[in-house]
C-alpha cells in the first residue's frame, strides 16, 4: 500500500459490469472538497494509489447466481484484497457489501429479503461503534437516516458464529426505528440481529447495505450519509 502524503484524499470507485451506483458515489464525493474520487475498472490490475477503495452499489453481473458471487473473482478484487490485507480502507455499499462477504473479506452471507420483495425506502440506523475510520465523526447511539435499496440484504452469520462476531464488536450499524430502538419492525429485510453494516477484525473494511451516497445533499433526501465520508476524510488526513 502506497501511502500518499499530500493532495486530496483518493477514493478509487470500482466499476463492475452491472454496477449502477458508481456515478452517484462519484457525484456524492464531489460534494466534499477534500475528496479526489476516480473510477477503477474491474479488469484492471492496479488500484492507482487510493486512500480508500469503494465497491459501489448496483447489480454486478446482474446479481445472477448469488449477489456478488461472480464479481468477487474480478482481477481487480485480488488487488483490493491485498490492499485491505495491508490495512487499506475498503468500503462496500450494498452490492459492494455483498461482494465483500462473498470474497470472505467480511463475515457472514446475504439472504434474500424475508418479504421476498425488493425494498427501497428511507431507513434509520443506530451507530454501534465510532472507533472505526468510517464512523469516527459520529457518536455511539446516534440515529442516522440512510435509505436501503436491495433484494438480498438479509445478512446472516450462516455457518460462522454469530456470538463471536458480536463479541468482537464487528457490527457498526443496526436497523432501528426513529427513536433508535432496534426492533423487528424496523428491520427491512430480516437481517440477523438487525445488522446493517459490519467491519472486519482489522476495522479497515466496512460493508453496509444502506446507501450513504444517496443522502449527501438536502435537495435529494438529506445529509444522513455525510458522516461516513467526513469520518474517512478526517481519518485519512490525520494519519498522514
Amino acid at each position, binding site marked *: 500500500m502506497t501511502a500518499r502524503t499530500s493532495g486530496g484524499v483518493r477514493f478509487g470507485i470500482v466499476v463492475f459490469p452491472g454496477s449502477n451506483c458508481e*456515478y*452517484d458515489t462519484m457525484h456524492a464525493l464531489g460534494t466534499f472538497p477534500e475528496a479526489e474520487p476516480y473510477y477503477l475498472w474491474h479488469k484492471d490490475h492496479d488500484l492507482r494509489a487510493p486512500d480508500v477503495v469503494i465497491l459501489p452499489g448496483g447489480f454486478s453481473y446482474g446479481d445472477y447466481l448469488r449477489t456478488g458471487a461472480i464479481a468477487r473473482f474480478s482481477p481487480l478484487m485480488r488487488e483490493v484484497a491485498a490492499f485491505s490485507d495491508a490495512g487499506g480502507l475498503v468500503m462496500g455499499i450494498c452490492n459492494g457489501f455483498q461482494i465483500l462477504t462473498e470474497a470472505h473479506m467480511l463475515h457472514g452471507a446475504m439472504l434474500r429479503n424475508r418479504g421476498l420483495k425488493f425494498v427501497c425506502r428511507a431507513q434509520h440506523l443506530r451507530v454501534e461503534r465510532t472507533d472505526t475510520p468510517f464512523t469516527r465523526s459520529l457518536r455511539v447511539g446516534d440515529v442516522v437516516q440512510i435509505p436501503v*435499496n436491495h433484494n438480498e440484504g438479509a445478512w446472516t452469520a450462516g455457518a460462522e458464529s454469530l456470538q463471536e462476531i458480536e463479541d468482537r464488536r464487528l457490527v457498526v450499524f443496526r436497523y432501528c426505528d426513529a427513536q433508535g430502538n432496534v426492533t423487528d419492525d424496523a428491520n427491512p429485510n430480516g437481517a440477523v440481529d438487525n445488522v446493517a453494516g459490519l467491519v472486519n477484525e482489522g476495522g479497515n473494511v466496512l460493508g453496509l447495505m444502506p446507501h450513504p451516497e444517496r443522502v449527501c445533499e438536502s435537495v435529494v433526501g438529506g445529509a444522513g450519509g455525510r458522516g461516513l465520508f467526513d469520518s474517512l476524510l478526517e481519518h485519512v488526513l490525520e494519519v498522514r
Partner: protein
Amino acid sequence: MPELYAELGLTAGEYEKIKEIQGRVPTHVELAVYSLMWSEHCGYKHSRAYLRRFPVDGERVLQGPGENAGIVDIGGGLAVAMKVESHNHPSAVEPYQGAATGVGGILRDIFAMGARPICNLDSLRFGEIAPSPAHRADSPAVGGGRQAEGGAPGAPAGAPYDRQRYLFEHVVAGIGGYGNCMGVPTVGGEVYFEDAYSGNCLVNAMTVGLVRHENIVRSKAAGVGNHVVLFGSKTGRDGIGGASVLASQEFDEKLEEKRPSVQVGDPFTEKKLLEVCLELLQSGRFVALQDLGAAGITSSSSEMAAKGGVGIDFHTDRVPLREADMEPWEIMISESQERMLAIVTPADQPEVAAACERWDLDCTVVGEVTNTGHLRVFHHGEMVGDMPADALADAPLCVVELERPDHEVDSPVDAASYPPPDAPLAEIMLDLLAAPDIASRRWIWEQYDHQVQLNTVILPGGDAALLRLKETGGALAVCTDGNGRHTYLDPYRGGKAAVAEAARNVSCVGAEPIAVTNCLNFGNPEKGPISSQLSRAIEGMAEACEAFGVPVISGNVSLYNESFGQAIYPTPVVGMLGLSDDVEARCGVAFGDAGDVVLLLGDAPPALDGSEYQKRWFGCVEGRIPDVDLEAEVLLQGVVRKAIVDGMLRSAHDCSDGGLAVALAESCLSGGIGARVDLDPAAGGSGRHDLVLFGEAPTRVVVSVAPAVSGAFQKLCEGAGVPSAVLGTVGGEALRMAVGWEQIELPLAAMRDAYDNGLERALEVR
C-alpha cells in the same frame, strides 16, 4: 400459399399487393417480413391516419414522432428523449417477464437516440383485485347497485381475484426487476383496477432520457459500403408469434419444439449494452443506431434502410445464435431482447468491436449498406429475400367506417335517481381512501429503486415526480395519466381530460408542460365503435395539446386489446414532461403549518359520472363525464405555476379520483396534519353532500398558503380570472369537513390506516 398469408394476418388484397411489388410469388422469408411490417403493430394500418391529427411541432422539438423516441430541447445544450410503449399481451401471458421486457424495450428506444435514461414510469391496468362495497353481500349499497346498460362490465360478486392479483404482483416485480438492475429509477406511474381489464391487462412503460444535443443519434442508415453491426445478446426463437405458422407448414412433426418461446429479460446484458452504446456515441462511432424491438431484425433493418433511402444486404448466417438450427426467416423475425443494430464505417469498426469486447458483448458485422434501396437477405451466400425497403415501411392503410358505441349518452346521469348509500359519509370516505384505485401506492414504489442517479426531488406519491437537473439547476417533472372509465363514457372528453390532468399534475409541482408522449390502448379497430373511440380520443387529446401549446413527440398504439370479444376501456395514457428553471421553486401535496389557509382553485361542478364513487358504491359506470374547459384549465395552471415560482404556495394538489374530499385527505396525510374546511353544499348542483365530497370534475386544485400571503394570492387568482374559494385552515389531528348541516370528522390515524394499507389489504382479502 394462399392459406398461409391469411394465417399470417394478411388480407387477400394485401397479398395481391405484395405479389405486385415483388413481381412474383413471395418467398417464405419475404412473406414473414411483409406480414410483420404490415401488421398493426409495426405498420399502424388503422391508426396512422388519426395520429396525423396530433400537433407535433414546437420550438423545442428536435425530433417528433417517427424515430425511436421524440426529443425536446431543454436549454443549456441539453435535450430530453422520451417515449411510452405497451407490453400488454406478453404481460398477460407471463407477467414478470412480459413487464420486464417491456421496460427493457422502452429503455432501448431511449438510448438508441443517444440519451441516458434518467427515469421510468409505469401505467398499469388490471381487473378488480377485491370486491367493492356495491358487490359485497352485506353491503349497505347493494340496494342502490345498478348495472349500466350497454354491457359496461361491473364486477360480479365473488369474481375470481387471484389471477388479477397474480398479474399485478408479478408485473410490479418485473418492472422493478428490470429497472432496478439497470440503475434507472422508476419515479411514477399509475394503476387502476377495473373489470374491463380482467381479460387483458395493460402494461405501459415510459422512459425519459437526457442527451447533449451533439450526441443525438438517429436510425437513418447512410453510406454505401458501411457495415451493419449487430451487438448485444445472441438470437433465439423468442417471441416468434403468429409467424410460427411458417414452421407448422414445413415442420408439422416438430411443431412442439418450434413453438414460439416467451421472451425472458436480461437486464444485466442491457446495462452493458447501454454503457457501450453511450461510450461509443460519445466518441462518435455510430452513423446510425436502432434498437431491436417488435419484429426484430426485420423491422430495424428495413426501417433504417427506408429512412436513409438506401438498401441493406443482410446475412442471416452471420448472426450469433442461441439455438443452432434456426431458419433464415426465424432469424429475421426473432424478438430476442437486448440487441442493437448500428451502421458503422469500416474505419470505426475495430473500435466498436473492441468496446463490445471490453463489455463482454457479442458484436458481429451482419451486413452492409447498399445503393439498391432493397432489403436483401442472404443465407450462406444464397439470396432468400429481396424487398424494397420503402414498401415494407409503408403498410397499406385500413379505413373502417366509424360507428358510435351503443353505451354512449349525451347527458349526465340524474344524481337524484341514485338512492344515497345507507352508510355514513365518514365510512364512505374511509372506503374510498382504501380503494385499490386510490390508496397509497407505496407498496408498489417501494419495490422500485426510485432514487438511483440522485435526481429524485419529489418522490413517487405526489402529483408528478420532480427530478433535478444537475447540469443546470433546473428540474424536470414527469407523470402519466389516463382514465379508462372516463374515456369509455366519452372518448373525446376522456382524451382531453387525460392531457389536461397530466399537465395539471406537472404544473402542481411547479413545472411548465413542454411535451407529450402517449400510448393508445384500445380494442379491435376493425370494429366501427372501436375506431370511433380511437379517433375521438385522439381528437380530444390533440385539442388539449394545442391549448397548452405542447407537442406530441412520440407514442405507441396498442390495438386488439380484447378477450372473448369484450374490449377493454379505451385507454389513452398520456406521459407529460414539464420543465422548471429552478429546482428550488417547487411544491408538494403536503399541508404545512397550522393556520395555513386552504383554498380550492377552479369551480367545475363535481359529477357522479365515471367517478370512483359511482363505481364502488353504485356498482356501475354510466353517464357522461364533464367536459374540460381548456381556457379555464390553461389559466388555472398558469396561476399555480406563477404562485409556486413566487414562493406563495405551501402545497398544491390536483383533485382527481375520489374528488375533493380525497384530495384534502391526501394533503393532510402527506403533511401529517389535519385541516378544518367548510364546503359549499351547492357545489354539486344537486344539493347532494356526497357529490360535493366525492364527485369528480376536472380543473380543480387544492392549495394552501401562509395566512400572510392569502390575500395577495387571491388577488393573483382574481386578476387571472381563476376562481378561488377559501375552504378553511390547516391544523389539528383530524380532517373536519362541514357540508351544509353535515359534519364529517376523520382522525388522521384512521385515514392513514385506510390509505396506507388499502392496497396491501385488497391483495389479501378472501
